[in-house]
C-alpha cells in the first residue's frame, strides 16, 4: 500500500530554473555549524577545501562570495566541449583520462576573463543569502545526487525533462521530434490526464517552440494562468513551469525582471519566483495537501561542483549517439555519462523536515537526472507507457520522499513577498 502522501497526490508541479550548480547554490549548507557540529551533515556540499587550478597554476579554493548579479557577466561556457573540459580538467580526449572536476577555472579563463575574474566560477552562496532555496532545501527533501542529463547546454537537457531523451542532440540546435517517443504532455493527454507547460509571459515565451508550441498550443499557459489555476483549484495533473528568460517592459509601464537565474540575471528575482510559485500552492490548503512541487535546475551553467558526474547504466541506454562532428570534442558521445550536478528540491507537506536523499557519496545512494521527470510522472499517473527509452523506464522515482505523515499546517513555512 502506498504511503498517504502518494495516495493523496493529485498534482505534480515542476519548476525548472537555469544554469546553477548544486555547490554554487546549496553547497554552503554543509558548512553551517550549530553547537560545534555540522547543522546539515547529510547534505553533500562543500568542505571549503575544494579547489581548481587557474591558468597560472595557482590553486583556488571555493569561496562564499557569489554575487546576485555582475559576477558572471561573461556567461560561463556550458556547451559540450566546455563542460568536458570542466569535468576532466583537460580538453585532450582518451579512454584513460579520469573525471576530476578540475577544469572549471581553465574553462572560464578561455572567455576573455582575467585571471582574477576566472576565479569567480568557484564562488558559492552563503545559505543566508538564498533564504528561499535554503528554506525549502532544509524544510523538505533535497537530492544530493540529481545531475543534468547531458554534460551540455540548456535545450538538450530540457528535452530530457519533456521527452526522456534529447533524440541524440547535445547542443542548442533545433531538433524535430520524428521518433515515436511522445512528450510527457502527449502521453498524459492520450491517457485521459491533464498536463500543461506554463511559460512566464509572451515576451519571455517558451524554450519548447517547434516541437510543442507550434504543434500543440493547447497544452501551454502563461504564469498568470498557473496562478489562476492554483487559486481556482483547476491545476492540471502535471505542470511544468518556465521562468522569465529576459528583462522586458511590463504592463502599465512596469518592468519585468528575468527570473531564470541564468547568469547574469539577478538571482534574487529567481528566489522570488520560486517563493511565489510555492506560495500559490502552499496557501491553498486543498492544493497543498495534494501536490508535490519539484524545483530543479536544467544544468550547472559552467559553475563549479565537486561531485564527479556518474556514468549511465549501460544496461538501460538512451539508445542514441551524438557523432564526433556534433559534440565539438572530436569524439562521439554515446549518452553514457551524466552532466554536472544541479540543485533539486522536492516539496510536499508529506515530507519530513530535513530529508536528504543520498547520492554518489553513499553506496546506497540514488542517482537522479531529468529523465526521472517524465519517468516518474508517467509511472505515477499512467502506470505504464511502453514507448519510451530504456533509460527513462529505468529512471528513479523522485516521489519516494513522500511519507504517510501530513505535517501540521503550522509546521510549514510561507514566504512573505
Amino acid at each position: 500500500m502506498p504511503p498517504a502522501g502518494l495516495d493523496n497526490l493529485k498534482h505534480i508541479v515542476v519548476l525548472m530554473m537555469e544554469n546553477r550548480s548544486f555547490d554554487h547554490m546549496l553547497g554552503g549548507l554543509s558548512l553551517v555549524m550549530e553547537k560545534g557540529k555540522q547543522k546539515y551533515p547529510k547534505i553533500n556540499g562543500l568542505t571549503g577545501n575544494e579547489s581548481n587550478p587557474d591558468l597560472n597554476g595557482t590553486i583556488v579554493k571555493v569561496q562564499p562570495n557569489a554575487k546576485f548579479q555582475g559576477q558572471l557577466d561573461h556567461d560561463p561556457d556550458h556547451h559540450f566541449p566546455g563542460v568536458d573540459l570542466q569535468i576532466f580538467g583537460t580538453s585532450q580526449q582518451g579512454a584513460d583520462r579520469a573525471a576530476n572536476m578540475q577544469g572549471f577555472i581553465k574553462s572560464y579563463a578561455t572567455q576573455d576573463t582575467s585571471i582574477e575574474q576566472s576565479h569567480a566560477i568557484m564562488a558559492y552562496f552563503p545559505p543566508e543569502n538564498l533564504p528561499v532555496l535554503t528554506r525549502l532545501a532544509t524544510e523538505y527533501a533535497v537530492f544530493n545526487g540529481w545531475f543534468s542529463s547531458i554534460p551540455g547546454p540548456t535545450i538538450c537537457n530540457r528535452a530530457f525533462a519533456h521527452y526522456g531523451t534529447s533524440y541524440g542532440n547535445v547542443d542548442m540546435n533545433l531538433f524535430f521530434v520524428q521518433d515515436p517517443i511522445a512528450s510527457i504532455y502527449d502521453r498524459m493527454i492520450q491517457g485521459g490526464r491533464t498536463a500543461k507547460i506554463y511559460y512566464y509571459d509572451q515576451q519571455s515565451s517558451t524554450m519548447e517552440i517547434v516541437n510543442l508550441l507550434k504543434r500543440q498550443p493547447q497544452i501551454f499557459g502563461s504564469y498568470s494562468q498557473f496562478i489562476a489555476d492554483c487559486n481556482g483549484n483547476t491545476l492540471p495533473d502535471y505542470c511544468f513551469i518556465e521562468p522569465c528568460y529576459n528583462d522586458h517592459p511590463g504592463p502599465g509601464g512596469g518592468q519585468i525582471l528575468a527570473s531564470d537565474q541564468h547568469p547574469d540575471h539577478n538571482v534574487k528575482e529567481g528566489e522570488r519566483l520560486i517563493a511565489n510559485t510555492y506560495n500559490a500552492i502552499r496557501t491553498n490548503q486543498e492544493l497543498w495537501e495534494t501536490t508535490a512541487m519539484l524545483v530543479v535546475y536544467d544544468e550547472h551553467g559552467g559553475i563549479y561542483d565537486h561531485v564527479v558526474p556518474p556514468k549511465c547504466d549501460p544496461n538501460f541506454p538512451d539508445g542514441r549517439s551524438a557523432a564526433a562532428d556534433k559534440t565539438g570534442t572530436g569524439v562521439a558521445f554515446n549518452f553514457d555519462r551524466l552532466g554536472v550536478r544541479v540543485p533539486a528540491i522536492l516539496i510536499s507537506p508529506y515530507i519530513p523536515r530535513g530529508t536528504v536523499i543520498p547520492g554518489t557519496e553513499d553506496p546506497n545512494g540514488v542517482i537522479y537526472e531529468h529523465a526521472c521527470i517524465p519517468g516518474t510522472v508517467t509511472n505515477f499517473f499512467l502506470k505504464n507507457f511502453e514507448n519510451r527509452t530504456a533509460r527513462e523506464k529505468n529512471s528513479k522515482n523522485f516521489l519516494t520522499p513522500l511519507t504517510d505523515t501530513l505535517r501540521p499546517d503550522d509546521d510549514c513555512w510561507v514566504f512573505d513577498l
Partner: protein
Amino acid sequence: MKKKYKLMQKVPKSPKSAYNHGRFISSLIEHQIKHFHEVEKSLAKPGEPLTDISKIKTELHASKYLQKMTARLHPQGAERPQKAAKTKKAVKPKRSRSAAKRKPRAKAKSGRRKKE
C-alpha cells in the same frame, strides 16, 4: 478573511538596478530566437517578408520578437498579464498594535516593479 500563518520567511526584493533590457542576449535567448525564426519561416506565405533576426541584439529586442511570434502561436497567453505573479496574500499572525498602525509598504510581486 486572510489566513494567518505561523512560520513566515521574508524574501528580499531585487534591486531596482537589476533591470536592464538593453543587456545583450545570451546564447540561450539567441537560440530561442533562431528556433522561433524557423517557425516564422514555416508559417510565412510566399513573398511574405521575414524578420531580420540578426538585428536582435538586446533582451528588449528579443522580448518584442518573442511576443510577436508567441502571440501568433498562442494568443491565449496574452490573458491578463498584470496578475501573473499574484498569489493569495499571506500575513503574519499576532502583529503588535504599533506595527499594525504603520502604513504597509507596497509589495512588489515577483517580476513586477513600478516604473522609475
